[in-house]
């Protein structure tokens, strides 16, 4: 009985093999393997001074790509973003694909961190990876996996495309201990923004504060009127605590010099120092006052950061101020209109001698595999058109100097871009620049412990310092 079962099985298997090999062939599906399936190209086609809607670096690989030298090749890009940002990415690279014939495959998803680590260790690294936290790129750079783009992109071009601050922020320590550039900046989020329910705010007669004292006065005013002015939430699963790191960085920029900020991000200025303490204690004045925060201090650690601004949209609003990066608009209720139902203002400076700094967080494109077509795509990423999907649809801003406000299709992002231009200085989100175990580890958890009362400030600061990798 069983014997015949086996024979049937064997027959089935053979039959299915036959079927498959001479089955109907409908339109071919996408190539299943995301990695290179490179077919050799023919000689370069003659260039027709190709009109492409983006700037091309002279003498580079992008030029050659437009001439058709790498037609048919594939480049893989890995990143952590999904819906709807992956749609925006497809839009953004369409111009590149059409001009060069190179296919760009985006293979990202939420488990980016673990997946990239495994892939790189196994020898399977993607061609380019989008790092939302450049500090994590440092780990890979130090272990020698990342290719420095300045090996073929001349400094003059980079200086033309980016503000010097951006170029400085891309420097990390390489495998031999020297500094190297980890990648090219692509897009960013503005963070020094306070969101408020515009219609109710104006109806109540509140005024937008322009200094920190005014902000505190407004806070007190709203509290006297009976409401809790601030909505704050830092819960985020494994990443709980990151908004608190943002506030710390904002206050650091406003209460101490840029040099101190940079030293702090590099690990030279310890967390357990008067500057950092002052910054943290400044925002603690707001956070730890139960009258100032919706849900009180205890609610902060258990409120999901995306749900935190929701009370602002109730009628009447249960809170009036929410500081967050511009991506938070994705969490606002559908139907809420920018400029009508909500708007933003710049988080005011504290000490006028430090000017009006602006905190940003961006995505860095880092190259793992050195091939000509990958180089061409990297060059494309140095142009603002490589972020066109976001420029026209909102959700992020282009990091390039050459991105003009009229490129922005959404007035909200345009307004933020203008704010950035007006800022006297800007700096990158510190925790994103710090090594992973601090910036995505002890800094987050330390802040959570501090806010929830599980540990006092001294313990937390010492722990964060201790976790800095030597």
């Amino acid at each position, binding site marked *: 009985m069983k014997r015949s079962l086996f024979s049937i099985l064997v027959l089935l298997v053979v039959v299915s093999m036959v079927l498959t090999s001479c*089955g109907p062939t409908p339109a071919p*599906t996408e190539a299943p393997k995301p990695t290179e399936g490179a077919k050799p190209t023919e000689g370069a086609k003659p260039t027709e001074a190709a009109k492409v809607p983006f700037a091309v670096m002279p003498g580079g690989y992008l030029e050659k790509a437009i001439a058709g030298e790498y037609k048919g090749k594939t480049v893989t890009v890995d990143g952590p973003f999904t819906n709807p940002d992956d749609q925006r990415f497809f839009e953004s690279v369409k111009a590149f694909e059409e001009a060069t014939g190179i296919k760009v495959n985006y293979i990202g998803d939420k488990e980016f961190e673990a997946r990239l680590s495994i892939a790189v260790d196994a020898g399977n690294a993607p061609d380019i990876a989008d790092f939302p936290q450049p500090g994590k790129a440092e780990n890979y750079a130090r*272990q020698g996996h990342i290719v420095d783009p300045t090996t073929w992109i001349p400094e003059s071009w980079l200086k033309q495309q980016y503000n010097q601050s951006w170029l400085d922020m891309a420097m990390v320590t390489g495998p031999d201990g020297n500094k190297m550039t980890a990648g090219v900046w692509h897009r960013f989020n503005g963070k020094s923004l306070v969101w408020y329910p515009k219609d109710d705010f104006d109806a109540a007669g509140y005024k937008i504060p322009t200094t920190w004292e005014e902000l505190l006065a407004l806070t007190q005013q709203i509290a006297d009127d009976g409401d809790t002015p601030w909505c704050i939430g830092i819960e985020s*699963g494994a990443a709980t*605590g990151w908004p608190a790191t943002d506030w710390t960085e904002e206050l650091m920029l406003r209460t101490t010099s840029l040099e101190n900020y940079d030293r702090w991000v590099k690990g030279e200025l310890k967390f357990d120092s008067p500057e950092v303490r002052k910054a943290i204690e400044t925002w603690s004045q707001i956070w730890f006052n139960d009258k100032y925060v919706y849900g009180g201090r205890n609610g902060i650690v258990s*409120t999901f950061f995306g749900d935190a601004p929701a009370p602002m949209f109730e009628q009447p609003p249960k809170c009036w101020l929410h500081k967050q990066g511009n991506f938070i608009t994705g969490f606002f209720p559908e139907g809420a209109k920018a400029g009508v139902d909500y708007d933003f203002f710049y988080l005011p400076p504290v000490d006028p001698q430090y000017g009006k700094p602006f905190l940003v967080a961006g995505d860095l494109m880092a190259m793992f595999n050195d091939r000509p077509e990958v180089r061409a795509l990297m060059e494309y990423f140095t142009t603002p058109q490589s972020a066109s999907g976001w420029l026209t649809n909102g959700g992020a801003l282009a990091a390039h100097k050459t991105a003009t406000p009229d490129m922005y299709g959404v007035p909200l992002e345009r307004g933020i871009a203008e704010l950035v231009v007006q800022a006297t200085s800007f700096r990158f989100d510190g925790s994103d620049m710090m090594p992973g175990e601090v910036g*995505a*580890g002890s800094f987050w958890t330390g802040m959570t412990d501090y806010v929830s009362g*599980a540990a006092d400030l001294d313990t937390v600061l010492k722990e964060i310092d201790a976790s800095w990798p030597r």
Partner: protein
Amino acid sequence: MVHMEVAQERRLGAGSRFLAWLGRVLLAVMIPLIAFVVIYEGFLFLRDSQAPRWIIAAVAIVWGVGGVALLYWVFNGIVERLPDVWTQRLQPFVFVGPAMAILIWYLALPAVRTFYLSLFGRDGPPQGVGFFQSFGSDAFVGLQNYVAIFTERLLTEAFRNNLMWIAFGSTFSVILGLLVATLADRSRFERVAKSLVFLPMAISFVGASVIWNFMYEIRPVEQPQIGLLNALLVAAGGNPVAWDKWVAIAPWNNLFLILIVVWLQTGYAMVLFSAALKGIPDEILEAARVDGATEIQVFFRIMIPYIMGTIITVWTTIVIFTLKIFDVVWVMTGGQFGTHVIATQFYRQSFTARNSGYGSAIAIILLLTVIPVMIYNLRQFREQEAF
């Protein structure tokens, strides 16, 4: 009869013993290897063919399953055609070989590699250096990673938490599973009850996290609660609390995470106990009842000893799962609020910080924690004459 086989075995000389050994090893390796090649060839067909998706899926299924079955049959056939003595020696390895080979390739070798990595620093052993030379390099730190583990606050917290998980999580899963299996066995509504208790197992961890968010969510007391527990608490006049994120009662907030996993896992225990209970011959139970034993006595004196083997099995596997628990903790709290466990620390160190030495050391510690369980199991088996 079984003893005859062993006796014959001993009479053979050293030369044939060596050949036997060789044969065993070859078999163990050959079966999966050939399975591999055969399936692989068929698979090249599948991958490159352009047939509609569902045909590929169907063929994949048939090919995968059929291929393996076919191979066992073939190799067994070969072995059985050999002279009896050889059949005896080699046949067990047709049976056991593939399993051991796969286990070694997928689990044992990586474990050894992990131990090797744990002896080095952050960036692992230096590239391009021979195995023996690597021990002399700078990156070699010996047992330093292990020392660091026992002194770091977060890791001692993780150990404490894992102990809590085992003490409460495993115990409750087993007890509840047994309870439900017994009750359901005697009830008219057995199938419905068992299906409903089993249902949580079908929910992925991500779905479970959403479900329990609806239970634990906290909102300010003046606002409507969307978490059930807080709603009940507020209705009874209290203030809402953060449950699993309730740092003030640490480490007991772990219990709320443990509750989630008990909820998810009890179905597993229940199914196994149910099958075991159904295997108890009716005659024994009826005889006891006729002798005047109450139901409770029957349960504790007859049923439990009879299924003790299953109880140990279930308990062992649940303890081991609990030691490895990761997803629920990671998704609910990320290990914060005092809820870190060994596996979340491993993730943090290996993937976030990319500290390969430290992360590997944590994994090895995890492996060592299972030794007591292993010893216990072996002793049980010896007592029950399995060996």
